[in-house]
Structures are given as C-alpha cells and as structure tokens.
C-alpha cells in the first residue's frame, strides 16, 4: 500500500515519455494555464469541474498569438471546449477541432494526473 504523501501532478505525453508540468493544485477548474515544453512549443492545460485534465497547443491558429490557455472553458453536448479570448472561436479539447471552422484544428496532447 502506498501512502499519498506526494501531491497529484499533471503530466503530458511527449516523445513517448511523461513530462511533468506542475502540481494539479495549480490548476483552477474551468480555467487554463500555459506551459513551456522542452522543444519550445507551448501547451494550454485545462481542468474541468470533474477534475479531468486536457492539453492542447497554446497557439491560437486564427491570430498566431499564444493565448488559448487564457480562454474560457465550456461544454456542449457533454464535450469540453475552450473559446479563444481573442476572436472567440471554440476548440474541442478532446479532438482539437475548431467548432466554428472545419478546416482548422490545434494539436492535442495526451495528459494524465499522477
């Protein structure tokens, strides 16, 4: 039996490895944070109200600004999305697809809480 002394952490899958981002307590349900990845890219991490974590690329493809982590989390038909804080396009957090433009999508990163 393990004792839970270590705080839960959010980890992101990168090159077949789990990359540690931060303690889960750093995340506020309904909001995102931005994380700098070793390769220089940025990921946007979110926690929903059930405590599930999601990660997508932080760059808003419509404006080129790294701002998706600052968007508002929402859900529609049970699927979570984030709305870009700039021009409000919505991105599905599970598939990365833009809900307002079929031709646009962002990268999704597998993420876990361990």
């Amino acid at each position, binding site marked *: 039996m393990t004792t839970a002394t270590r705080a839960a952490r959010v980890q992101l899958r990168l090159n077949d490895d789990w990359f540690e981002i931060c303690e889960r307590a750093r995340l*506020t349900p309904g*909001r995102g944070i*931005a994380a700098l990845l070793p390769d220089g890219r940025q990921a946007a991490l979110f926690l*929903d109200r059930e405590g599930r974590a999601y990660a997508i690329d932080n760059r808003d493809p419509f404006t080129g600004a790294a701002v998706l982590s*600052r968007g508002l*989390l*929402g*859900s529609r*038909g049970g699927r979570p999305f984030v*709305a870009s804080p700039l021009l409000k396009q919505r991105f599905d957090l599970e598939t990365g697809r833009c809900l307002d433009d079929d031709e646009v999508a962002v990268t999704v990163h597998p993420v876990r809480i361990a």
Partner: protein
Amino acid sequence: MEFAPRLMPVQVDEGGGAALLRTITGMGLTVHTGTGTQEIVTGEDGAVSAMKLSDGSELATDLVVFSAGVRPRDQLARDHGLTVGERGGITVDEQCRTSDPDVYAIGECAQAVDGRVYGLVAPGYEMAQTAAAAMAADREARFTGADLSTKLKLLGVDVASFGDAHGTAEGCLNVVYSDSRSGTYKKLVMGAGGELLGGVLVGDAEAYGLLRPLTGTVPPLPPEQLVLPAGAGAPVALGPESLPASAVICSCHNVTKDAIQACATLPEVKKCTKAGTGCGSCVKVIGQLLPHSGDKGLCDCFGQTRQELYEIVRVLRITSFRALLDGHGREAARGGEGCEVCKPAVGSIIASLAPTIGAEGHVLDGEQAALQDTNDHFLANLQKNGSYSVVPRIPGGEITPEKLIVIGEVARDFGLYTKITGGQRIDLFGARVEQLPMIWTRLVDAGFESGHAYGKALRTVKSCVGQTWCRYGVQDSVRMAIDLELRYRGLRAPHKLKSAVSGCARECAEAQSKDFGVIATASGWNLYVGGNGGATPRHADLLAQDLDDAELVRLIDRFLMFYIRTADRLERTAAWLERIDGGLDHVRDVVVHDSLGICAELEALMADHVTHYRDEWAATLDDPERSRASCPS
C-alpha cells in the same frame, strides 16, 4: 439626377418609383428624373457653378457627386484577343466558355448569354458551378441568366424586388397595395395559375424574406393578404413555417428550407450549408426556422434572459455559477461546464450583487476566477498579439505632476507604449502577463487604482475644467466628476459604463454622449441618460433638471441599479432605453417617481456596493493566492 424616367429603374416599377420619390422629396431632396446632364459649368475661379440639363434648364450647384455603375474589368481578355461585349464584359456561352473554348470566365468580368453582366454574388456562384461542371465534361450544366432579387436601403427607405418584378410573364396579373401617406408600395406579380412570380416592395420590405422564397409556388394565403399591413385585415401573419420545404431561403448559396431545418443552430446552419454567409439578408428568417426560435434564452446553457437570471440570483441568493447552472440551466447543460457566453454574464451578475447576496467580493476569488473573460481575469486588456494594456484610474481626469511622473517611469522601465485615451487617462500597452503584478505593485504604491478598463464596469467620468478655471463655468464640474467616479468605480454592469460632467451648457465634456452625463446649470445639475458614442451614436435624453448634489447622486444610483437589474447581456444603456417597454418615460417613472416602489431597494444595493468597494489590484497584490491566480503562466 436620374437619366431613367424613375428612381432605381431596374429594381422597382413605376408605382414603386413614385412612392420612393415622394418619400425622398419629403426629406427635402429635389429629384430630377428622365433628365441627363449636358454640361457642367464652371465659374471664373474654375469651381463648379451650375449644371446644364438635357431639358434645357440650368441648375445652380456648388458640388457635383457622380454615381457610376460597374464596368467589367476585361482588359486581360482584350489583351489576349478574346471576344468581349459591345459595352464590355468577356462574352461567354451557356457553359461560361469564352471565345477560346479552353478559357472560362465567370462573375462580373463576364457577359452572360442573356447579354447581362451580373455584379451580384449569387449569380457568380452559379456561374462558377456551371463552369466547374463544364470542365468536368458535364454537358447539362447551363447558366442562362439569374434571379436579380435584392433588398436594400436607399436613404433609409427599404426597397426590395424579387423574381419577375416587372411582370413580363405572359398573362400575369398584379396585386398592388399603395399608401402614399406612409410611403409604402407593395406589388405582387401573380401567374395565371395563382403562383407568385415576383414583386416590388418600397417603404416596408419586412415581407421580402418570406415572399422571395415563395416565388414560383402558390402562396398559402390569398395574395391580397400578403400585401396588406398587419392589423389592416391581414388575419394571420405569414410565418416562415408556411414556406414549402423546397423554398430557397438563402439565395446567395441556394439553400432550401429543409436543408436549414436539418440543423439545430445558426452556427451549424452557416457551417453545413453556408446559408447566411453571403449577403446576410436571410439570417432573420433562418433564426425563425430553427428549433429555438422564439427562445430568448441567454445561450445554449440557460433558457432564461439575463434579467431573469439576475432575479433568480438575487432572490434565491445563489452565489455560485455551478449552483445556478445545475439548478436552473437547460436540462442538457446541467452538470456541464457552461460556455463562454453565460460564464462571464453570470460572473458579472454575481459580482454586482456580491455584497447583497453574500458572495465573495473579489473577481479572482473562488469559483469567480473561472468565470471571467481573460481581461477580467488578468485585470488588464488583452491586445491582439497576446500582450496586455494597463489603465490606472485617474478620476475626473485630474492628476498630480508626481503621479504623472510615476506613470512615465513605469512605462519607461517596462518598455510600454503610452497613449492618452478619450476618457482622460493614460493607457500603457505591451505588458506581458507576468509583468502585470510588478507593474501594478509600483502603480499601487504610488496611489493608483485599477481603472477597470478591462471590465464591464464603470470606465471614466470625464470632466471639463469647469468653474475653477473657465470663465463660463457655473459649477465645479471636476469635483463632481471625481465624486461620481469614486462612487461608482468597480461597479459591474451588463456592459461598460461611461460618464462625463460639463461645467456649463457649452458641454465641453460631451456628457450627452455618455451612459449618464451631467451638465451644470445656474441652479444645479441636469442629468442625461442613455447616450452613446461609437458605431451607433445616440444623444442622451434629459432625465431630470436642476438637481442639487444629493438629488443628482440619488437619481444616478437608482438609474444605474435599475439598468443593471433589467438590461440584457452586453446591452449598453442606449440600446436598453430604446428596447424596454415605455422607454424613457417608463424609466423616469421608475427612478424619479418610484412607480414600482423599488427605489429604496435600488439605493440600498448601491450603498452596499459603495461600502464594499475595494481596489482589485491592491487586493490582488496583498494576497499571494490571487496574485498567482492572475498570473498562472
């Protein structure tokens, strides 16, 4: 000056032209029809002095404005020896093929087989389809001409025409309704079998969205009822439900009613069918065809309006978004996350009622933090490159040299671009998220507070220098502006609030373009409400006159709280005043004469706000948790 015998000869018929002419003449314009310009006469100095007309008369004038039609841009075709029409336009056949069979032309550079050049988007799409089909060796595709239905506004007068507007079909009959008093003219062209062939609408083109899709079918109502104004013997209004499934609703993209009804929401319609993304004139009808039509709900998550949600939150003292969503949201949205529309709207309602319902007061506390738009979350304004701008409050626009120096030093040290705003304060642009707490530490130390430029809240109370310096001033406008700005700072509202105070009727502070504006009189203050600048300017209305200081503040308290209680999401006071039943008179009854008996309550709400106000930035910096919340990346 119109060369044709009537205005807009292509769109409207003689009757419609006459109605249009009457309305426009009534606006004080003189219109010459059936007349051409022979010569423009200039005076000694070379300036225009008159126009010689084709009927021999002369018209004195200082200025000539030309309006010319479109001319096809066909130079490329000419340079390469393709055949072009006499009046321009690359000649194409029914397959949109030019005189060189390997070259196609579509859109307004081409002259179609019917000899016309189409400058509208719908025929352009149709020609593109035809050309594509022809290239794919489909011999069937043909473009022989297009529907020129349009709806537009001429000097504010609605004009629409659709289908066979001029009644050229054999055996067709007209049904006409004309009322010269109101400047309305409506004509429907009916075929021998009772089918609607086309029509002209002038002065009132409301029915266009429904009539055009009915073209080619036998309408569900007798034609005379389709042209009569509502209430004048028109027993049933013709709703979009009565359209046949095959009726074309979006003529730009040729989308039918059944295709639209296969979708659930407007964004879905736009995405799946492209309907409503061309000229946009069909969007209203699309809205009526969708399942939620008539649904005034805030968003997909809530079936209530903002005002209804405000009442629920106030009466039931609901202090969290989750509780509101799970208890009062639409069935399908309960237990979910909400969305980008309702989260900030509910956040604002809870924030403006916080002291009264016992919710946490600070916008970064608890769950509130997750409801705010990024601007509210970082207490700064997001700019297009992802950086933020910072606006410290400068009440009434009055500032000491010491404070000016601090702003200058902060801007210099953090490399910020500075700009004086229209609201008499200074905007510092280009701050990175992680710099915000450092910037604000210095500003707060120097005595600055958040200017709430990021929030749906009071922005500024602008002022002129007033009595202290100006020889015309009759009251101390700067002092009043500062008092008002300090009283209402931090107040969360459905939209931003702006105000101004002028020291006399010369109105240098432009108070009449503000949500609430104050103008000094010899015996006190006049209060104006519902003004707006921006894209839809509106002059404020006078609410009350010659008020003393206390009366003025009491009326503004009531006015603002009544607005916050009853306005829709993102509805400025100007739009709210225009929308609510009874308009200005009703608002005056409520806030001046207390016709609803709620004034004591409105004043108490404002008193709660004033006592509980705390600067958000100072509070954020005091509390490491909040500081971190505002700066997570």
